């Protein structure tokens, strides 16, 4: 005898710093000058890493590489809202997040140069290695968060993934687990509008990606992903919620300024006009406008930041390229905790091979 509404939902959007570098104080996080500086440094370092990586790739000194240009605010803003003891479970485009946490850039270069030794995760970093198969890392974040909860570790886990990743079952299964077990996890969707050539609108008929959280009964928000303050603020709130056992999905609405990777030609599937429109929303110049306006630093100082960042990156390249050849033992060493008899035999065979 009824036709009634059972449940209602809404999806909200947050922007703090607008394209002119003006902030909305009501929603702003506590912006100490140190924080602003730290965010700017990280974004610049990430951009410098990208530029160098692209140049190296053109010279054949690096494997296929997927630049993060344009997404630095989302990566840095979210990473900086975490504590040292919190976890990051990355996808593959978040070098800026690594760098924001003080991860050694030389290790990133080693990895992207095709050397396994770059995967030796330093003890002090709670980060998983790059996950290439899209979306498959998201359940790991849920498991890590489960362990944190059970072992009462007070850790929050943030996992990155793209707009494309939201079409995969792993994403959804993980969200659902987090909702059921009330886990301290943050699902950070970097919606850069493309999954290789597929535009966001054809990835899903959902109006927003944030609303996908409704399916798992968890909270979500969409933020301006080119606004480092909004990214920081939303993550900070999600961290607070996480510490109370409530997961959150954050959609960072941004844009992939470069090609998907160095093997891609984005001009095959998107217009220069569209790219130019987004160039105006560049996250680094937006923050620069704010800082210069607030007189947190001047132009000269800003140039120094850039110079230092580039120096740090070129030092890292030099280190990475000086690593030398990998011993053959090394590719056998980590298959199991102890070499099996068969692997010992195969290693012998491999050793004998003339190189």
């Amino acid at each position, binding site marked *: 005898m009824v036709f009634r509404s059972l449940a209602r939902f809404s999806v909200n959007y947050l922007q703090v710093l607008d394209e002119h570098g003006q902030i909305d104080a009501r929603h702003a996080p506590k912006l100490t000058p140190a924080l602003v500086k730290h965010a700017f440094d990280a974004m610049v370092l990430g951009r410098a890493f990208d530029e160098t990586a692209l140049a190296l790739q053109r010279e054949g000194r690096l494997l296929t590489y997927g630049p993060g240009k344009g997404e630095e605010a989302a990566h840095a803003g979210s990473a900086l809202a975490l504590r040292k003891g919190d*976890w990051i*479970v990355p996808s593959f485009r978040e070098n800026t997040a690594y760098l924001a946490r003080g991860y050694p850039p030389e290790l990133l270069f080693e990895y992207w140069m095709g050397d*396994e*030794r770059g*995967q*030796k*995760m*330093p*003890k002090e970093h709670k980060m*998983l*290695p790059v*996950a290439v*198969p899209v979306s*498959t*890392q*998201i*359940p*790991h*974040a*849920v*498991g*890590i*968060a*489960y*362990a*944190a*909860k*059970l*072992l009462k*570790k007070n*850790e929050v886990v943030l996992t990155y993934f793209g707009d494309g990743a939201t079409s995969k*079952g*792993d994403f959804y*299964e*993980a969200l*659902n*687990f987090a909702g*059921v*077990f009330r886990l301290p996890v943050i699902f950070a969707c970097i919606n850069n509008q493309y999954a290789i050539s597929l535009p966001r609108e054809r990835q899903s008929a959902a109006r927003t990606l944030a609303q996908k959280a409704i399916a798992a009964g968890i909270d979500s928000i969409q933020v301006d992903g080119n606004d480092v303050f909004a990214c920081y603020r939303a993550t900070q709130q999600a961290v607070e919620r996480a510490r109370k056992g409530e997961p959150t999905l954050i959609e960072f609405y941004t844009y992939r300024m470069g090609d998907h990777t160095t093997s891609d030609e984005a001009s095959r599937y998107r217009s220069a006009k569209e790219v130019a429109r987004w160039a105006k929303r560049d996250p680094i110049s937006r923050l620069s406008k704010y800082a210069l306006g607030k007189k947190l630093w001047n132009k000269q100082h800003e140039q120094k930041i850039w110079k230092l960042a580039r120096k740090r990156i070129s030092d890292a390249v030099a280190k990475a390229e000086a690593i030398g050849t990998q011993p053959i033992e090394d590719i056998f*060493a*980590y*298959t*199991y*905790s102890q070499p*099996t*008899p*068969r*692997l010992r035999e195969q290693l012998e065979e491999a050793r004998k091979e003339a190189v």
Partner: protein
Amino acid sequence: MAVMNMVDALNSALDNELERDPRVVVLGEDVGRDGGVFRVTQSLLKKYGELRVVDTPLAESAIVGASLGMSLNGLKPVAEVQFDGFTYATFDQLFSHVARMRTRTRGRFTAPLVVRFPYGGLVRALEHHSESPEAFFCHFPGLKVVAPSSPYEAKGLLIAAIRDPDPVIFMEPKRLYRAIKEDVPETPYIIPLGEARVVQEGSDVTIVSYGSMLQSCLEAVKLVAGAASCEVIDLRTLTPWDERTVIDSVGKTGRLVIVHEAPRNCGLGGEIAATIQQKCFYKLSAPIARVTSWDIITPLPKMETRHFPSVSRIAKAIIETATLQ
């Protein structure tokens, strides 16, 4: 000591390990309140609470993916997949991540987890409930694969699997869950992974098998007792398998029959035959025989006894191999 069937023995292993090590967590569909559809996890929820004995939503891929995450952050998850046929959904997580984590972090992160599930046929089960997927797990480097053949074996191997620093796929022959009872200690003990067991010594022909087929082999061996003296090897660990023990035995007998429930094509039997023909080439007096199910989709129960290796099919292969000149 107590008389246990395999379900009891597995339950006892889990109970021991949950008690001994606070990092052990059991998770899966219906493992908590229901105690598992085969009751392997019976009463554990009551004893260890719902944080450590976890009824999960219905999603095998996420169960294994989350288990990996747990194992990276200090837990030792023992995940249950309800049936063999539902492990396919876990392959992506197992092959893309679980098997690789140690390599991909140069040992910084490891994945000391166990995925256990009932496998195999001949229990008149529904579709997708009678599969033997061991070869898939064996083919991918980085996983260990175990299949016990009796209650005593099951407990010792499961405890070894839980304590192992590597990810272990633990395949429980569901046909044997309640078929055999034997003395099993109530306290924990270990049967080391990677070591086969010579169940019976013999001189004419070596039989290699594992899991539920081991029992069929023992029956077949009895049938042919007058005609051939059989050395029966229970492989126990399927990866890494104990080449040494098989090579030694074939060195003695010169003849080998391999028996498994999985289809023949690219099954584990192929690997064993290929390895042994290479390492025992000059010792072999007859071609190595494989007795397996056929390379077809597992038929529904009415015809399953025509599909899986029967005692008579095994006996026939033993006689043929043992007597070939």
